[in-house]
């Protein structure tokens, strides 16, 4: 088993009102088979043993599904490996002697709650603005199976893969949440069930996005590069199309 020694510079902040700052910690003999979060667990055990307060970070499934985890590692959302959530990053990506700067996802729309935890409820509010299909269900059985081509279903599925981690926002120089919103709009906009409200949906969700203080896309493509689910910026184009149609002909 290979082990490495690391210097961690971690952002510590008691709560959103408090001042934050970096603290430096040394960790020895970290196995390269460990995941990044397991490495933080080790640090927290060490801190607890010393009677200090452990570093707060979000996590739950630890298998890249729930979208809870996330941090900037040396300035990159979810760290240096592509198509990974932070919980899937492994220490084999680092070398002994490395210094890792670990910070929360930063954005005007994501207030810091504690240490590495941020409040991403702005993303939920974008969904609340219209990210759903209004239908009546429970009718006759067979007529309900709407035929959908497998290609369309797959495209919809690719956008629906978004776990709402917020890496797209954190890596965008403008703080935009376009990839997130685009993915949600694309998923529903591609399916026949989502057609009736398509334009109104885009208009409402984009408006909410602005209200939350997210910025605008200037085509930097950082979001696509850092998205753990590989969602393509084509979904932003689809959103823009629906949005412009919605604002021209909507309401």
């Amino acid at each position, binding site marked *: 088993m290979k082990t490495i020694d690391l210097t961690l510079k971690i952002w510590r902040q008691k709560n959103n009102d408090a001042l934050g700052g970096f603290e430096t910690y040394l960790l020895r003999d970290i196995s390269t088979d460990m995941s990044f979060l397991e490495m933080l667990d080790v640090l927290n055990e060490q801190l607890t043993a010393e009677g*200090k*307060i452990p570093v707060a970070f979000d996590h*739950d499934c630890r298998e890249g599904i729930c979208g*809870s985890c996330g941090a900037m590692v040396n300035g990159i959302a979810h760290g240096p490996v592509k198509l990974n959530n932070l919980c899937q990053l492994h220490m084999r990506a680092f070398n002994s002697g490395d210094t890792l700067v670990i910070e929360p996802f930063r954005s005007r729309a994501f207030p810091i709650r504690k240490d590495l935890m941020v409040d991403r409820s702005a993303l939920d509010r974008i969904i609340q603005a219209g990210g759903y299909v209004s239908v009546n269900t429970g009718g006759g059985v067979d007529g309900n199976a709407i035929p959908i081509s497998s290609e369309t279903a797959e495209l919809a*599925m690719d956008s629906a893969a978004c776990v709402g981690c917020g890496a797209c926002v954190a890596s965008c120089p403008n703080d935009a949440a376009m990839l997130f919103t685009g993915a949600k709009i694309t998923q529903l906009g591609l399916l026949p069930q989502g057609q009736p409200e398509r334009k109104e949906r885009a208009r409402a969700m984009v408006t909410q996005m602005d209200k939350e203080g997210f910025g605008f896309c200037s085509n930097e493509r950082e979001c696509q590069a850092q998205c753990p689910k590989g969602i393509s910026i084509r979904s932003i184009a689809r959103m823009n199309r629906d949005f412009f149609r919605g604002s021209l002909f909507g309401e």
Partner: protein
Amino acid sequence: MIHNFDTVIVGSGGAGLYAALEASARSKTAVLSKLYPIRSHTGAAQGGISAALGNVEEDSAQWHAFDTVKGGDYLVDQQAAMILTEEAIQAVYDLENRGLPFNRTPEGRIDQRRFGGHTRNFGEGPVRRACYAADRTGHMILQTLYQQCIKNEVSFFDEFQVVDVIIEDGSCRGVVVVELATGEMHIFAAKAVLFATGGFGRIFKITSNAYANTGDGPAVCARRGIPLEDMEFYQFHPTGIMGLGILISEAVRGEGGILRNRDGERFMERYSPTLLDLAPRDIVARSILTEVRAGQGIRGDRRIDDYVHLDATHLGKEVLDAKLPDISGFCRTYLGIDPIDAPIPVLPTAHYAMGGIPTDVHGRVVIDREGTIIDGLYAAGECACVSVHGANRLGTNSLLDLIVFGRRAGQHIAEYVKDAPAPRPVADADEFARAWIDRLLDGADGPHGGAITDEMQVTMMEKVGIYRNKADMSVAVDQIQELRSRYQTVRVQDTGSRFNTDLLELIELGNLLDLSLVTAVSALHREESRGAHSREDFPERDDDTWLKHTLAYLEGDEVRLDYKAVDTSIWEPKPRTY
């Protein structure tokens, strides 16, 4: 702070959200969840949701119900199983209408695939019954239901952790809750409360369950005199990634993946000649462990953490990329291997609780063998026990359970609250919770919870795991009791009030310890082998004595056991062979 609602749903996984969706159509509904809704563990379900649509080959709800009963080793309540499988079909169509992107056949219909234990014509051979959205079925269900709840203007209270339930004069009056952001304690007064808090895999060392799966609902109920049903039946999924417990979905075997021992032998041919690698989970998990114990694991050292291979190399890149993209990704990420080139090292991992809070088919909580009900108290999803999974759940039947019984509970609640008395806030309802939390936070010197968690998980894994016997389990009960008394001295390091995740984790540990005790005691007393409960000292199923559900009452430090009848009104119990 005191809040008033008609309906309070605790938990925002598939079960909670479906119930909320139905209840909110006709009542003022709040959903309390310790996680953000879309982060609930339902999102982890990869394989699919079963329904006898008959889209790709002939199928029927009756066959599905039979498989469910047989898979559950006849401990399933059979009328409930019929409801599950008959309502499955409409449930899937409803989900698709609401925008869920299922995989499609070339003709554009919902595609279906094979899953363990699902057969055609009462056991003749495997049938394609699982509807799926790549390997992200649960994620899609969660997103779809969340969107629909928002449309219905459900009030969401995210990161609110329920720590107690208020029951007075045989009816439920609300819940006591801690808000993570502020540390403040809230009382939610309600006419109806539904628990949908999911599983409790965290009582075991190696598990596919997320950190939040700590069984809060069952533990809270148990401390208020409600029995827990069939807790000794805990499913180990045969294929967790070695060392981590992260799941490799059964879909890999559904698509043709094969289990092999160190000689490369397809050993399931010996244990289950008909269904082979797709035999029910308890059988496959035991087969793997039997191989490992016989020195046929890949290392061959007979240790409990030795493993076998899941071989998917022959499936081809196309199948893996199109149908199992996440799984390929998992292997590359966690193991640094590609399933196209190399077999996946797997071993069984603690996965699913068949037992839980006893309910009837409307989700109402029943508290004894006579079927007495607590007015206004409901449960659904993994934390509940209807019982449709009996001694062993079939793959893809859990998502189905959430949808069917989540919906039924929601509908019943909507009716019930119409005439139910207005919620009355109860004075001092939060007394018990306050005392508990004050102690944890009083700043006194005390050990941290970490060591207790670890010891509990190891004890449960080794002594109340896949193979069980009296000697081991008696030791386990004593050890858990000892850990429970040590728990009385633990303290939180961080005594702040805002985002005190440390505090909430310690509360969860208290829940896990109580559930470990109930599980171990229930298992110790069931002297037979049935489904997931496999006794080395009682290797046979014993219908004469044990064809009955366990009801375990946690009374202080004691567990009192009672039993109730199983509904076998459709199919006579038969030996279970595959």
